């Protein structure tokens, strides 16, 4: 039996989490929508890829998004810690280009705990920090059924629970996450219909 996604997503507040993979952006936005409130997006100012608020509006109202641009990762982390500690934002997303050292990771955890907010690091492959509460790998999945938001979310690390993998899709109209039934279940449903 697969663990319930609702037990694992949204992940715990007062902690920082990590996500990587090509769909990490939609994971962060889904989390921002689930948390409500304002999200601070901290990134380095030289990052070549630009967030597109028009696309983001399918997930989250872009008015709830603040962007902080630091000139290097140190500034990004400093800003994130400040924001996590203040508790004025519910989620802080950090785009990281270098691995976090233990001190930095721990500081972020403590800040998130103090501010009762959630931190989320968008990391590169293989750059996970030991301090993170959970680590997710998210990738889009090609779906024959024509669903263009189908993704697989793989929980790779979990400090307090089991690991698992879910197939999800995003419902842009209600801005809600939906679970895609297992292929086995799907077949079962199909048989039941016949």
């Amino acid at each position, binding site marked *: 039996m697969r663990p319930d996604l609702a037990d694992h997503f949204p992940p715990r507040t007062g902690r920082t989490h990590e996500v990587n993979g*090509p*769909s990490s*952006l*939609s994971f962060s*936005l889904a989390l921002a929508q689930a948390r409500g*409130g*304002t999200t*601070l997006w901290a990134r380095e*100012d030289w990052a*070549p*890829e*630009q*967030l*597109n*608020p*028009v*696309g*983001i*509006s*399918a*997930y989250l*109202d*872009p*008015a*709830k*998004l*603040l*962007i*902080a*641009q*630091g*000139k290097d990762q140190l*500034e990004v982390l*400093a*800003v994130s810690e*400040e*924001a996590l500690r*203040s*508790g*004025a*934002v519910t989620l802080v997303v950090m785009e990281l280009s270098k691995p976090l050292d233990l001190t930095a990771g721990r500081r972020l955890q403590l800040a998130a705990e103090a501010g009762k907010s959630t931190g989320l690091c968008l990391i590169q492959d293989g750059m996970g920090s030991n301090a993170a509460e959970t680590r997710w790998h998210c*990738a*889009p*999945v*090609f779906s024959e059924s*024509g669903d*263009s*938001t189908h*993704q697989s979310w793989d929980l790779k690390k979990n400090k307090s629970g089991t690991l698992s993998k879910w197939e999800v899709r*995003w419902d*842009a109209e209600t801005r809600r996450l939906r679970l895609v039934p297992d292929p086995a279940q799907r077949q079962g449903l199909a048989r039941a219909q016949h």
Partner: protein
Amino acid sequence: MRARSTDSDAPFALTHLHKSANRIYCLNRAARAQGLHPGMPHADAHAFCPDLISQPADLPGDARFQQMLARWATRYCPWIGLEGPHGLVLDVTGSTHLWPDEATMLGDMKQRLSRAGIHALIGIADTRGASWALALHGGGIAQPGQTEARIARLPVSALRIAEKTCVSLERLGLRTIADLIALPRPTVTRRFGAEVLLRLDQALGAQPESISPLSDPPHYGVRMTLPEPIGLTSDVMAGTQRLLTRLCETLKEQEVGARVLQLTLRRVDQDSQQVELRLARPLRDAGRILPLFERGVGEVEAGFGIDMMRLEATQVEPLPVKQVTHIAGRDKDKLDDLITRIGTRIGLENVQRFLPADSHIPERSFTIAAAAFSEPEGSWVALHPRPLKLFTPEPIAGHGNRPPKSFRWRNMSLSTGRATGPERIAPEWWMADENWRAGLRDYWRVETRQGRRLWLFHTPQNPGWFVQGEFA
């Protein structure tokens, strides 16, 4: 006039647009000698005096200069008002004793002004009207009680009455003020209205006339000198708190909020250090501003100690008093404070938000604004799905007007599973955009069998395929 006159001997005039004609506003002595007068159309003046040099007048600049002069004049007395657009009126009663006599004071004034290149006409008399009359006709001093004798021989035009009235008085043979005084009062009122006698009485002191002094512009600075130098961060913060409390009272009185605050800390070795705080919203709440100073104050090098602190709101914005409600946005305040605090580290303009813009061009369908200087507004409309991230178009190999069956992008071999499109977007002809030189674009949403969902476009006018964005 002073600053822009090129050659003092040549006729020179400043002109301004008044009553739908370019008229002379002000002229120099040479021009006056040619028979020109203020208010004359510039074309006429040019006909009278072909070698007239003219420049447009800078009225706001003149007003500023007048204010500056008024400030300078406080060296003679504290009670100063403006007299029309070209004059100042000083109430020197009680401050002439600082000089041997009034003539010395007047001489000093004239000397200082002429050194600054200003030709001033100054009159001193018992009343405002009389001193104006004296100033206009050569200047001079009327000793106390001598007012009537001194101005009696001046023409009636010295009385600050309308020019039209003045002319009709002169036509009746009333050339001097003495002639006017000699007339029975009821006849004057019947013929010319109350103005003439009012001005006469004001000049002679029978009617009071007050001077309304300029109000001082509000000053948003406070300072504190310490008997013993301090060096601990907590001490400096305590000092800052005291200054802030005082400053915030002033801000509250004026119904403004500080946007930029500057804390100057002077050390015992006369070196001074400054802490600048740029706020995300205008504020005047000392309790909220103080913690925002912590970071800046922590970085100050105290050296042998700080013995003077000065806090100034260098930029203020109107902040009207608001009704307190139970649904007041505590969260919004917290967010503003956070923006300020982040701003002290990375610069306030680097905390940004997205605002919608009216354009079909994907890169221009939004603008990025500094969060501290904008409000979230507008609605986001996406008629067609748009990618979450955009990048500069990356070329891929492809032919024809359908997306390629398989292609390589960023070192990945991808094959098209499903393509949705095309969505044609035309460049905005009114914007010369280098990136849109290739002309029309047909956008396709391509879902690859490997999972990645990309936003491709084809340029039919200039065949080529590019990847510009990625969906989740």
